[in-house]
């Protein structure tokens, strides 16, 4: 760039001979290339290459422990997943079940909390900070604490539900309760994120629609359903997008609390893939499961983005 400008202003024959090492001249001529290269290389090595290598490996059969190299088997891994592997089908279903349940809970609670915290009251700042705390805690620590709370013999949860005449339950040891119980933990941890995003959305809402609604004699309920919620929708959709992507690939709390159990009753796709890849060393198959998980996350995100754009 610098050279071009100079070339325009000064006739070519006056240009002094350029001095410096070959490298510094190269840097001067190609600043864009040189200065972005390190970042590009890092992104390529750490992100682009692994993604493509995963896709490549997903077409192979390879046990990391055997002495034979990867064997190309085309789409056999995918065929096996969709037609023969019960644990895979179970995992897909559990992943979706967990995601829908957890995000729905978080959405309702998170938006309600945000509306509540948006009202003026004494100690508002204090309560806001308190409600945001779970998000800052370490997931593994959270999981360990909840595990103790859910313990059927020693935990506090059975005492709590006992107060309202329910239980006792075995919680994460119960095939039917394990996913809802895990969704509760995820909700406890991540509702604040939805609250946070919604609060930001609430802060940007214009006042005018409310004024005219007041003049037209709308009730508070009408104002909420007809004005606040529609105006908040884009914000809520963003929060929903974040949470559903995260829920689809939840690993930490599930692995720590149940490791996919009892039996396979909480083995979501990510947990199953971990097992296949790092315990069974069936690397090729694990890669194909990862590709499927990636497609699932991408698909859900695209749908949510479309919904958000389509409506507004």
């Amino acid at each position, binding site marked *: 760039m610098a050279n071009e400008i100079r070339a325009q202003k000064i006739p070519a024959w006056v240009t002094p001979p350029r001095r410096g090492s070959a490298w510094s001249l190269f840097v001067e001529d190609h600043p864009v290339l040189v200065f972005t290269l390190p970042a590009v290389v890092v992104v390529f090595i750490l992100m682009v290459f692994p993604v493509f290598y995963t896709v490549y490996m997903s077409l192979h059969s390879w*046990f*990391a*422990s*055997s*002495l034979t190299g990867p064997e190309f088997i085309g789409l056999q891994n995918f065929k096996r997943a969709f037609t023969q592997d019960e644990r895979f089908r179970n995992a897909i279903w559990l992943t979706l079940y967990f995601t829908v349940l957890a995000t729905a809970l978080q959405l309702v609670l998170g938006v309600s909390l945000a509306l509540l915290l948006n009202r003026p009251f004494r100690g508002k700042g204090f309560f806001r900070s308190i409600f945001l705390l779970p998000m800052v805690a370490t997931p593994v620590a959270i999981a360990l604490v909840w595990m103790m709370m859910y*313990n*059927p*013999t020693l935990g506090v949860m059975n005492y709590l539900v006992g107060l309202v005449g329910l239980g*006792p339950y*075995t*919680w*994460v*040891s*119960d*095939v039917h309760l394990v996913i809802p119980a895990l969704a509760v933990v995820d909700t406890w941890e991540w509702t604040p994120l939805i609250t946070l995003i919604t609060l930001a959305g609430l802060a940007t809402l214009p006042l005018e629609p409310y004024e005219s609604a007041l003049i037209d004699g709308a009730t508070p309920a009408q104002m909420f359903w007809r004005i606040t919620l529609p105006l908040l929708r884009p914000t809520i959709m963003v929060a929903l997008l974040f949470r559903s992507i995260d829920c689809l690939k939840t690993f930490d709390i599930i692995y720590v609390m*149940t*490791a*996919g*159990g*009892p*039996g*396979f009753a909480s083995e979501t796709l990510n947990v199953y893939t971990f*097992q296949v890849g790092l*315990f*069974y060393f*069936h690397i090729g198959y694990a890669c194909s499961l990862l590709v499927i998980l990636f497609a699932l996350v991408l698909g859900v995100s695209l749908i949510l983005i479309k919904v958000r754009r389509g409506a507004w």
Partner: protein
Amino acid sequence: MRILRTFLSLGLVFGLALASSAQAAQFNWQQFKGTQLRVLLNKHPWQAGIEPHLKDFEALTGMKLIAEVYPEDQFRAKTLVELTSGASSIDVFMTMPAQEGLKYMRAGWYQPVDEFLKDASLTAPDYNWNDFLDKTRDAMVAEGKLIGPPIQVENVALMYRKDVFQKYNVKVPTTLDELEAAAKALNGKAMTDDGQPGFGIVNRGKRAAATSMFAGMLHAMGGTWLTPNREPAINSEEAIKALDMWGRLLRLYGPPGSENNHWYEASSIFSQGKAAMYTDANSLWPVIEDPQKSKVVGKVGYALFPRGPKGHSGSTVAVWGLGMPKTSKNQKAAWLFMQWATNHDQVFKVQSEKGVLGCRDSVWKDPKGKAKVPADLAESLAQGSKVGTPLWNPPVVAVAEVRDAVGAAIVTSIQGGDVRAAANKAAADMKRIMAETEKK
């Protein structure tokens, strides 16, 4: 004081010198003088016990030891990566044959030591291989070849509350029928100091984790993992009975939520005084006798895992041992180390100083050798390790995957589901997994 210490250390040095010269007279420990050995160790009570003595080996042989210690997960990963690369410089590593033996042997990663053991120029006359408890020797064999010497042993055993059994006048079970009767009789009885009721029995119920303890019941019932021609036998009548009983005991007389109990949860319940019996690895005894955490210190008896209806033993013999990679350039020198680390003197030291459960009969017979562990544990361990089975894991290449398949049937049984169907499914899964991972 200082003078005394000087005297002691002088005496020690002198004694060592005497001892080594006496041995050297019969056997040349110095034949690989100057060799450097790289030893990979897992963070483990045995490692902690032997490490302070490693300098004795260097003094005796004139070799240099480079010992690397890693926590278990990293240790396994490191060993696997180095062996896979085919260019490992490891000379000796700790290994658990039931977990990885078949895989490593088939991959050609182990250098079998049968020849070294037979060679009089390489094995000291006082090594006495037959002194190792019978089944601990078997446990170190894969595909008919000896991997190395065992260093630590444990069995699935019955741990029971002596006080509770006495109070309610129940006989300590020696058979599976008696085990169930005792669990039934004691379930719901007061067991803690403040009179709280406890469970009849607690065991692991978590999918894969439960299989290694369930192995005791499987073998006691007369079942096995595989038939002699390597077909899954987990759906045999004996195995189905074992699956059914493991689940039934926990469902009827065990704590709720057993399906998620690993040894950690199960041993907590037991050491909090909330269960009358617990069948798990007897190497857990330091957890149960830990005055800091346990409420049942001194109240627990250790016995053999009960026998089955036809008298089959349920003891399992799980060993850690030493192995040598084929890639080692100092195999004979490495054998000298394996031999030294497991000769009578070292086993005696590690066991009498740290209470590590060693594998030598002579040490268990020595009152000083067993002083650190409860007397009935010493007795039952030595006995169980002679009569038990080394097959605490299914003898397959893909151990982890097969354990998950069998574990699923155990969970179904705990939940009161269709055990036969679950066993058939586990057998089908095993067959598929073995076909995938053991094709030659």
